[in-house]
């Protein structure tokens, strides 16, 4: 898979203020029997977006996802906790979400997201609190300078793993990098035998 490179993104935000939004919410397990990674947008936050009869819930802020430039999700703390399913970032991307902003994002989700071009953005608590109160706000995420800007003059920095950032900016596939390490890997195996 070749990665889509990520430079910067300006978009309105969808706010889900709940803490601990787990990957079972992002994509319920009953949708995991797929052997594909595409077309999972329909399943994204399914139980939040559709009622028991499968009718769309009119009041769900997620209905805006991917529409009118709503490509950034602002969520409560510990976003993406729970199951390691990579279907979670696949589903969000297919729904039109390209970045998630929170005060902290669970380790495995963060790792999975970065490998698919979905940017996990962890900001300071003050910025986080402010964004949680600003649904519809236009936010710019700049990966090159690792800054988030909104509301005219609000600016916050965020950290992304330097290697993941390099891969995203340059469109480098980490698998290609690993395959280049094969001589060292073989040497390591010889040393242990």
């Amino acid at each position, binding site marked *: 898979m070749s990665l889509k490179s990520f430079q910067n993104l300006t978009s309105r935000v969808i706010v889900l203020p709940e803490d601990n939004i787990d990957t079972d*919410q992002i994509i*319920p397990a009953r949708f995991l*029997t*797929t052997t594909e*990674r595409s077309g999972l947008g329909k399943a994204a936050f399914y139980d939040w977006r559709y009622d028991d009869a499968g009718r769309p819930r009119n009041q769900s802020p997620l209905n805006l996802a991917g529409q009118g430039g709503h490509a950034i999700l602002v969520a409560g703390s*510990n976003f993406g906790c729970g199951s390691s399913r*990579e279907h979670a970032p696949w589903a969000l991307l297919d729904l039109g979400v390209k970045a998630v902003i929170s005060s902290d994002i669970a380790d495995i989700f963060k790792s999975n997201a970065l490998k698919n071009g979905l940017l996990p953005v962890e900001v300071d608590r003050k910025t986080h609190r402010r964004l949680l109160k600003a649904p519809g706000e236009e936010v710019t995420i700049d990966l090159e300078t690792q800054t988030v800007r909104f509301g005219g003059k609000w600016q916050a920095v965020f950290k992304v793993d330097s290697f993941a950032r390099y891969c995203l900016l340059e469109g480098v596939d980490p698998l290609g990098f690993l395959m280049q390490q094969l001589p*060292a890997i073989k040497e390591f195996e010889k040393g242990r035998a």
Partner: protein
Amino acid sequence: MSVAETKPQSLFEKLWRRHIVVEEESERPAVLYIDLHLIHEVTSPQAFDVLAGKKIRTRRPDLTFATLDHSTPTLPADNHGVLPYATPAAAAQVNALIRNCREHDIPLLGLDDPRRGIVHVIGPELGLTQPGKTIVCGDSHTSTHGAFGALAFGIGTTEVGHVLASQCVLQRQPKTMRVTFNGALSPGVGAKDMALAMIADIGADGGQGYAIEFAGPAVQNLSMEGRMTLCNMSIEAGARFGMVAPDEKTFEYLSGREFSPLGDSWDEAVAEWRTLPSDPDTVYDREVRINASAIPPMITYGVSPDAAAPVDGRAPQPKSDIEKHAAEYMKFDAEQPFSTATVDRVFIGSCTNSRLSDLREAASVMRDRKVKEGVTVLVVPGSEAIRAAAEAENLHLVFLNAGAQWRNSGCSMCIAMNGDQGEPGELVVSTSNRNFIGRQGRGVRTVLASPATAAASAIEGRIADPRPYLTMTGKQNRCH
């Protein structure tokens, strides 16, 4: 060499150092060698597709091992030999793993294999899981294997592809945390209660960025099965790694298993394993101390595993909109005694609590008793080997006579993707690991608990403290 010259190393750091192929630098993570890659049907098909697209074969099928558990039915095949899959997609997913394993020469515990079972149960059971190994699986509960002093962690599907192709992952070194359980557990309290007490203490994200080492007398006194339960739920505190130092119990458990070393190799392996425990005076990035003797049987009352409290307690007053929303979903009123909550279904199983000792614990409560009318009870052993062992000591008859269902092995209602699930609105007392909204079926309210608490709740039809059962039938319990 004097002590001053060498920095004391933790169990984690020793294992990490021994598996570095390329050192971590600020600009890139370490290339970490993987000794054992476990795969299952749900998180592997897309990884095999990536390999197929690049014409890459699995580099070390000899270090890769597959089982079927997540989408796999727990009800037997019908008279025509057809398994009752939840959907055609579930059957296709199982068949995709069978096909991929055949094409890549990867050993697979197929549907009829008497060793098949949940990935985190069969690894230790077969002796594949060993101290000192790095173990990964596309499953967050891979931390279970850390109970053996292995460095084991869950990865995503892209990384499954990385390991298939290179036998390595790109990984940054996490911080270390030691969680010490002092004192001794009270009767009727077990590893599950310790796990829930710890998560309630440090929070669902308290372990994020850390590798946890569980230590202290109450951990040393746990059986290997108890240690697996504890390490299993590390991820519920946000930690990808949970480990326990290997000791005589570890070696005794592994001795004579199918993939354990034999003869001289065994002696060499044990000598090596003895060097793994953390050095004295190791400094951890964070220390947590918990008094094990003060832990009662625990349950969860919310929709995150850190919302845990004593089973004989009351639902707390919600302190935020989020807690209020959770209480509304769970239908717990503030100050309501948990013991007044009516139970619709009980699930005894999962990679957390489906091993023989778990089934014995549940059976000791249910023996010669009946499940409360209207309560559906599923008992799902973690592997076919456990099922056979339980049947050999007639545990299945205890469950069946009580009115519970006795199933074939699999993940079943823990992840509820094989057709085993609750109905909307039902309250399920479950020995699994996650009480997330909808985890066990849309609208299902999950209460996490130990096997003893789940069994007592099945008998009473409400959330029940298991301790009275242990004193009432104390003598009988010691029979097996």
